[in-house]
């Protein structure tokens, strides 16, 4: 026994030494110019991913597992430059408007779907009409709610009155017009979201089957989907976009244990990591050397209240919620349990997004056990004096959920336990079905870098990602006003006022902002991450073996 375990330690030491030397040589070569390494343009690489919750339809992916694959398979009118987050035209030649309500879209020619059919104006219009239709039950259908005629195809209840939205009109193959219900100054920003992707004719014959074998127009085409194992995509050689892939394809490998993904990365069995798991954060920079990535990200971690439970409805419970927020020692938890991989949050919008304002949460996000206790007592106490936090145990959340609970319990005496669900899908299903008793983990990764996305799409009444069913007429009114503004700047400013309403109601407790803490293997180079926390897949270069 003793002999065996010693042998193991020796092996580990050798591995560390090898890794260290590998880092050294890598650093030297990149210093001389990153393009010097021989690159295999046909080479494929793997990425740590998770099983998509839904079939791969562009308007049906809100979670990262499906969303990031959709992003590679489809390309909409515009997208965001990974370097600076600015909007740039892709399929669109130009999008023109004078009043922020009526838009004329001109398409570039030469774009094709992976099955060879051309991308035309009706590819967009038909796709949007289908995705918005309530019958098709697409999770992101409310993204189309700005467009005139949305309520006809997606009434609050009952069957749709029309098959198409009156606001969309095809002029010819390369032109179409969009009419909105009112001015939405940042509508072009929204168009970069995957829900606005075009769909080929093949989609409409059998959307369900298509969801297992999607045909897009993006830089990568779909190859195969082994459920709960991997999704493979390959570079599309006729891709007409600005970001042509510099590699041959990607394998999205499914991991339920982030620790396992990290171990695979260290041994070069997976090439690019999504996130380093909390338990390896302390050592990942030493393990990976120059292959470690640590940068800011447009994402926030919250814990939200199940506002649909009667116990949380009374008005004075806002004080209780604020009190609970003040009972969380964000600084210490981010420094210790999260190893500095997060930045304590004091606002509901992540920094970097347009319209971000520091400290909108104010004192309610500062750790103050005495005040926390007082507020909870004033608000009539926590229902049953107990909270549970529903979370998925496959994402490395256990440590911080436990730490948050300990912090709350010790500061206020409120019993608090984590309620782990085995995987992301299970936890999302429970949250979607509104079966959460008191609290749930909710994170938000920006869809587009504007504060409106962090606010209206998460806290607006009936919004798809409003997991806690928060509803405040005042907030909705301010959000509606903000949408009507004629400039993006004005919109952002008005949304800051709406955010102030969140500070009063505290429907969700902001915990911290994400940082991209990741890394890549020795097989790849030029791995960069955008503000969404996704690697810029098309830029990744696979080294010649």
């Amino acid at each position, binding site marked *: 026994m003793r002999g065996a375990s010693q042998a193991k330690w020796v092996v580990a030491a050798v591995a560390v030494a090898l890794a260290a030397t590998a880092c050294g040589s890598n650093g030297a070569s990149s210093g001389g110019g990153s393009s010097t390494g021989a690159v295999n343009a046909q080479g494929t690489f793997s990425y740590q991913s998770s099983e998509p919750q839904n079939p791969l339809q562009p308007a049906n992916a809100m979670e990262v597992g499906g969303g990031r694959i959709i992003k590679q398979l489809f390309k909409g009118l515009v997208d965001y430059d990974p370097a600076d987050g600015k909007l740039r035209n892709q399929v669109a030649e130009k999008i023109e408007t004078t009043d922020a309500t009526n838009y004329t879209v001109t398409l570039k020619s030469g774009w094709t779907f992976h099955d060879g059919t051309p991308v035309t104006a009706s590819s967009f219009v038909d796709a949007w009409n289908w995705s918005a239709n309530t019958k098709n039950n697409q999770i992101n259908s409310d993204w189309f709610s700005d467009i005139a005629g949305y309520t006809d195809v997606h009434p609050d209840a009952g069957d749709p009155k029309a098959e198409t939205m009156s606001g969309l009109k095809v002029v010819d193959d390369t032109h179409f017009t969009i009419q909105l219900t009112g001015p939405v100054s940042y509508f072009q920003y929204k168009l970069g979201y995957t829900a606005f992707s075009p769909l080929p004719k093949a989609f409409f014959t059998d959307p369900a089957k298509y969801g297992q074998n999607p045909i897009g127009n993006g830089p990568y085409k779909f190859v195969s989907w082994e459920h709960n194992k991997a999704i493979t995509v390959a570079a599309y050689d006729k891709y007409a976009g600005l970001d042509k892939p510099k590699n041959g394809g990607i394998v999205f490998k499914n991991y339920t244990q982030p620790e396992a993904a990290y171990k695979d990365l260290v041994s070069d069995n997976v090439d690019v990591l999504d996130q380093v798991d909390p*338990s390896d954060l302390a050592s990942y920079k030493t393990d990976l050397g120059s292959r470690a990535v640590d940068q800011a990200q447009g994402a926030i971690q919250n814990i939200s209240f199940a506002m649909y439970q009667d116990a949380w409805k009374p008005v004075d419970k806002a004080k209780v919620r604020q009190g609970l927020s003040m009972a969380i020692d964000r600084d210490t938890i981010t420094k*210790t349990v999260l190893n500095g991989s997060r930045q304590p949050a004091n606002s509901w919008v992540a920094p970097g997004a347009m319209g971000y304002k520091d400290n909108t949460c104010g004192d309610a996000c500062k750790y103050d056990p005495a005040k926390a206790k007082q507020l909870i007592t004033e608000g009539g106490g926590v229902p049953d004096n107990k909270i549970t936090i529903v979370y998925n145990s496959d994402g490395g959340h256990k440590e911080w959920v*436990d730490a948050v609970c300990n912090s709350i319990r010790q500061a206020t005496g409120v019993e608090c336990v984590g309620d782990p669900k085995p995987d992301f899908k299970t936890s999302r299903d429970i949250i979607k079905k509104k079966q959460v008793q008191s609290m749930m983990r909710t994170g938000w990764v920006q869809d587009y870098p504007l504060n409106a996305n962090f606010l209206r799409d998460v806290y607006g009444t009936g919004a798809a990602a409003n997991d806690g069913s928060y509803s405040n007429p005042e907030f909705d009114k301010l959000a509606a006003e903000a949408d009507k503004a004629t400039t993006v700047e004005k919109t952002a400013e008005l949304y800051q006022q709406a955010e102030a309403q969140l500070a009063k109601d505290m429907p969700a407790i902001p915990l911290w902002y994400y940082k991209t803490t990741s890394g890549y293997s020795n097989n790849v180079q030029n791995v960069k991450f955008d503000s969404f926390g996704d690697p810029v897949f098309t830029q990744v270069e696979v080294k010649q073996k």
Partner: protein
Amino acid sequence: MPDLTDTKTEIPAQRAAEVPEAKPEKARSLGLDAWHDLRRRPIFVISALLIVLLIVIAIAPGLFTSVDPRAGDLRTHFLTKPNYGHLFQPDWFGYDGQGRSIYARVIYGARASVVVGICVTAGVTVLGGITGMIAGYFGGWVDTIVSRVTDIFFGIPLLLGALVVLNAFTSRTIWSVVFALVALGWTQMTRVMRGSVITVKQADYVTAAKALGAGTTRIMVKHILPNAIAPVIVVATIALGGYIATEATLSFLGIGLQDPTISWGIDINSAQKVIRTAPFALFFPAGMLSITVLAFIMLGDAVRDALDPKLR
């Protein structure tokens, strides 16, 4: 000198007591006989002392530590190293990744393990004992039915079955784990009891009791049970350690006990994530678990030797 002669003469006397001539002396029951045998075995004495200690810890953990095992202070105690000089102090075994005293958690974790171990053993012994008795005594179609049902349950692997059963509980406590393990573990006892009852049933004294007109219940309880129970007790004692290990395994896998219950399995699970930076967080709960399981298995071994030397 007289002392020496005394001891020398005592040994033959004692031996004489055990050989057939013992008849005129007061007859010893099976239990008394076993006890006589057991208390002279060091392995029994050590394991029994350990178990008594564990039970005391489980009943009154407050005697051993004054710290709340759930209270953590991340500011000052995040993965603080153990201070081995501070015997029985909160920092004796160091602090875990939530800033909680590992010593306090090890002490409070004993309760879950001991309760699960004892309750599951009691449950399977009662359930398995009754079904085994019925099957063995009545025989025929009753035996066929009971045996087939037993076979079905026996076919389900304990750990796998427990995973499935426990997944059905939305919130799991000690009792749901006990329920799952009893529901899947009783078959082993049924088999042992049935075999034992079938052997005993043919004994002369049973026939005699029948001839004297004793009722079924009386025969089962007064004549068969005391003589058939020994192998069951032996198997149960050995299995007890196994049940404790199974509970820890389930908790480790995240499907057994849940927060706020304190369990060594849960602590081992959270400690494995910091094993590179804080190996002590893994060492102490894992060590306590090993010692506990070992104590029960040693006890089971000793009891087996005493009760039923044939099984040796």
